[in-house]
């Protein structure tokens, strides 16, 4: 069974339809990259997976988004627990105005995941370690998160997402504001995290999609044009539209 199974998904901002009949299955522990020109709907689609679009009053969804066989848009879905299970990392790192430790501990505390204080420390350290950040911050855990570099802040946000034990991680252009070295660290991290998590990443950087993902999905004007193994997508895509996009003929 697929970890995520989306069928006939339509999404509207008021009367404007932003996504048209999207169907895609994402197996467990796969990295799938969403590419496409600006405004093609890839970020909107990503946000439908953990109902982040619920925050937009005029947004409306039709179709099914099944995660582990359960439709996340069923009325009785607990959205908070859905977002814990399906974590998210944004384009711009958004640490809380707190210490490094507290940034990661926050989600653990409010969800009551830890057994005791020692367990809380252990979980914070593990999340920071899994986000490949612990080594750089272990001596200044109680200093402000704002003192970290952009790349470190982004990895802190990943650690924060990992701390609440998600199963799926959604990343919306997680490295677009970072320099090449920080970008490389995020990409290495994605490849490492794949062993444990299912990851969907939106990126404008085609080489990034090629480097980190198992499959790539190409969106255009709110439609899913093609989804294929990344190797095929970048050497011999099925659709001419995909070929035109990845070879820079438009976009």
């Amino acid at each position: 069974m697929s970890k995520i199974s989306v069928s006939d998904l339509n999404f509207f901002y008021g009367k404007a339809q932003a996504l048209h009949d999207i169907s895609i299955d994402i197996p467990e522990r796969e990295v799938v990259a969403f590419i496409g020109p600006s405004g093609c709907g890839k970020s909107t689609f990503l946000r439908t997976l953990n109902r982040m679009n619920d925050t937009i009053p005029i947004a409306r969804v039709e179709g099914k988004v099944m995660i582990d066989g359960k439709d996340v848009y069923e009325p009785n879905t607990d959205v908070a627990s859905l977002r814990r299970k399906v974590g998210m990392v944004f384009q711009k790192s958004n640490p809380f105005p707190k210490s490094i430790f507290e940034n990661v501990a926050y989600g653990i505390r409010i969800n009551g995941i830890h057994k005791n204080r020692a367990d809380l420390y252990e979980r914070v350290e593990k999340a920071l370690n899994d986000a490949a950040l612990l080594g750089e911050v272990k001596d200044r855990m109680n200093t402000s998160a704002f003192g970290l570099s952009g790349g470190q802040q982004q990895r802190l946000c990943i650690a924060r997402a990992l701390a609440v034990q998600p199963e799926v991680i959604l990343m919306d252009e997680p490295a677009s504001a970072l320099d090449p070295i920080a970008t490389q660290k995020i990409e290495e991290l994605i490849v490492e995290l794949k062993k444990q998590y299912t990851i969907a990443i939106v990126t404008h950087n085609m080489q990034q999609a090629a480097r980190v993902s198992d499959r790539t999905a190409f969106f255009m004007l709110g439609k899913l044009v093609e989804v294929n193994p990344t190797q095929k997508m970048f050497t011999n895509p099925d659709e001419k539209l995909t070929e035109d996009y990845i070879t820079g003929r438009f976009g």
Partner: protein
Amino acid sequence: MEHRIIDQQLDLLRDKLLLLGGTTEAALERAMRSLTARDSDLAREVLEGDKIIDQMELDIDRFSVEILALQQPAAHDLRFVISVAKITPILERIADHAGSIAEAALILNDEPELKKYIDLPLMAENAAEMLRTALDAFTSEDAAASRRVIEQDKVIDKCYHRVFDELITMMIDNPVTTASAAHLLFVAKHLERIGDYVKDICELNVYLTEAAFIKHSPRLEAA
């Protein structure tokens, strides 16, 4: 469709490859003529010209790497650069074989001519025709034409075996011809190898146009 920076570079890369292809074709034709017309000056010219072909190969290698590094081509663009980068050394090797034929001509031209060199001129014409058609097919990205050329290689192989048998018989019947016949055997072998190389070029054109690796797959070759 917008004009892309890479288009200009891919066009230039194609031009460079075709120039190398044309120069290689000419080297083969002149090498054979130096043999059949017993023109040793022409043979020396072929050998001298090989340096230019080597330089062309290096130039295309450098340019292909530059495009890969700076333009990061994908899909058809990527397959095009890869195909050119793989066809280039094949052409250089064909030119090397032409050089070896010219070297044989230098030796044979000082000896009495053996029975108009049997089927060798015909074999050379076939090889040259295959090469010309293969390069045309690459330019027009015509995979069907490439597959037809691949089939033609069998004709060259047959011709080679006929020449081989004839030359061996000649050596047995008239041992005084052995040295010359041995040189001609090498010429026949060079032409047979050229046929194989042209086949490789055709396989790369099928890769370029269909993204299919048909090398070592007889079933796909015929598709």
